[in-house]
């Protein structure tokens, strides 16, 4: 039982990271329909940013974190400007920006790989390497920090979409681009905001998880795939779905490894089987989008 509770903290932390990546996808998909597979590379950029601000620039953790997130917002803006806006304005098919973003994925990864050596780099911990016991639960400081931060982000995101006018505009664009434009919503502004915020979410995921997995040039694609999986499980309709999907995926992965009485090699297959079965049973995801009427 103690193992299970301990594992829950670790799984919850991983789930939060997946959830943040899924949120990044979600923020970018909803107003534009574009799947940005480069979210993993955005996470990687932030992880390296964490290394640079901590080890090279000697900034304190909060200062470093803030700096990295600001930079990530800028990167998101830049990505949208370069790879998305020119194509959307010319009425290109939806595949075009997806491919352009895949091109950016390669550019990000190779730029990092060439600037830094191909070895992994240390990313700072928020509160150091220690372990915390909260009643029956025990986990690393970083795990608790990840959980707390992610809950705060999702609470903020929920509040934004449910309670603010700006959030409603966002939803409107997601439901029907043309109608939203006709209602006077500035599509370009919404798209830019979406990409900037998405990059911020992905960056946060990267710098949080980077403390454990280290910053290296190949960390992007696995994160992107796990985040995408979380997104589909949770459903694209609701922000909370991203977090739910991430948690379910992480718990499935880690509980299987710990408790399933099968060889470690086969345990790898379980998340994929789980996903495939899930898709056949409930392809629209767990949480449905809110119906208007």
């Amino acid at each position, binding site marked *: 039982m103690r193992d299970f509770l301990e594992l829950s903290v670790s799984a919850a932390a991983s789930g939060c990271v997946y959830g943040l990546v899924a949120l990044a996808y979600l923020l970018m998909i909803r107003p534009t329909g574009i799947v940005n597979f480069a979210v993993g590379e955005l996470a990687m950029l932030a992880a390296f940013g964490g290394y640079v601000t901590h080890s090279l620039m000697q900034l304190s953790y909060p200062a470093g974190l803030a700096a990295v997130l600001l930079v990530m917002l800028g990167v998101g803006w830049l990505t949208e400007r370069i790879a998305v806006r020119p194509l959307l304005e010319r009425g290109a098919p939806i595949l075009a920006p997806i491919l352009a973003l895949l091109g950016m994925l390669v550019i990000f990864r190779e730029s990092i790989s060439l600037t830094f050596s191909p070895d992994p780099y*240390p990313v700072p911990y928020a509160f150091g390497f220690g372990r915390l016991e909260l009643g029956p639960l025990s986990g690393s400081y970083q795990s608790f920090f990840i959980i707390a931060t992610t809950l705060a982000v999702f609470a903020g995101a929920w509040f934004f979409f449910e309670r603010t006018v700006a959030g409603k505009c966002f939803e409107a664009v997601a439901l029907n681009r043309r109608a939203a434009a006709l209602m006077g919503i500035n599509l370009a502004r919404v798209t830019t905001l979406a990409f900037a915020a998405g990059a911020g979410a992905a960056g946060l995921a990267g710098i949080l998880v980077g403390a454990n997995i*280290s910053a290296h040039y190949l960390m992007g694609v*696995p994160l992107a795939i796990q985040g995408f999986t979380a997104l589909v499980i949770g459903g694209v309709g609701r922000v909370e779905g991203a977090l739910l999907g991430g948690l379910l995926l992480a718990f499935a992965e880690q509980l299987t490894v710990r408790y399933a009485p099968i060889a470690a090699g086969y345990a790898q297959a379980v998340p994929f089987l789980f996903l495939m079965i899930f898709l056949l049973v409930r392809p629209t995801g767990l949480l449905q989008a809110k119906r208007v009427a």
Partner: protein
Amino acid sequence: MKISSKLIAGLACALAVALFPAHAQETVKIGVITDKVGPAKPYAEPITQGIEVGAAEINAKGGVLGRKIELMIEDDQGKPDVSATMARKLVDSGAVFILSVSLTPATQQAQTVSLATKTPQMTPSNSGDTLTTQIDNPYFWQTGPLGSIQIATLLSYAGTKNYKRAALVSDNSDLGQLLARFFRSGLEKADIQVVSEELISRGATSAEPQMQKVRAANPDVLVSAGVLTAENVLMLKAYRQLGLKMPLLASYNFSVPVYMSVAKGLLDGVTFVDAYDPAKPEVKAFEATYKRVTGKDPFNLHGYGYDGMRLVADAIQRAGAVDKEKIKAAIQATDFAGVMGAKGMKYRFPAGKRTGFDPNGMVVRVYEGDRQGRVVHVGQGKPQ
């Protein structure tokens, strides 16, 4: 008829050039297949740099058989099918020897070419035991430290500790799986029961479930056969977080210096097997040479490449001619002391075998604080 002296001089020159072609233009072409962009890059890059320094040093001393070495370096992107293509490119371009320093399956697939074209091929770094056994290729040699040697060396060090139960952890890379297989059989041969065998996937975000399983199985020792550095660090973090106390014996991957920066504060007491003894005079000479040529400090990976290049040059010198069959025979007869390996170790290929790293040639070292400590054990002899 008066023959102009200039004309005679001109004819004499032309005759001379025709009869004695400039040897400076003929080189010994050595092909290198490396990975510049894929998953093997962290290892292939320094190894290739070691090869380059080795070649530069040999050329500075006059080259091999009076000719300069010309390195033809190709990138296989870490992809096995591209590796085979690059091997063909090198053979077509006149390479008489191919050095493979990319991933294990890439080296494997390139063997199709060395076998078909009867071109000698060697890996100075790959440690997968099956490279010389999966296909019977008499033109392929391997001087990397085999997985079976690594585990045997670690276990001979641990001999007095009387371990009965071991947990084995690895990753899902090709080499990681291969090492896990040979580590397992090494453990079983030493009558140690493998009570838990865990696997950390590439891209995992936590190794706590695996380490919890290890803790639940209550082993006497934890053996790491993983070769993905980031995932190994993840494992080490979980090991420390869960407060596991059993000793950790690790493969040669832990000998790579990057651990000292990326796993700071976590390494004290970790025991690993290495092929690099910093106290060895050859190593000191190598470090000085490397520093002189490139201005940078090398580490153990560079040594593999350096040794590989010099071993090949030595074989070609002994062969007496730039002829593939003669080089093949010469390589098989290698008796070469290099930078890598324990003091006094020589690369030798016993009759009929094509693995050249001496089974007693590895050393065991321990991390003291965050620094790679001294050598505590050598080879598979009785522990000190």
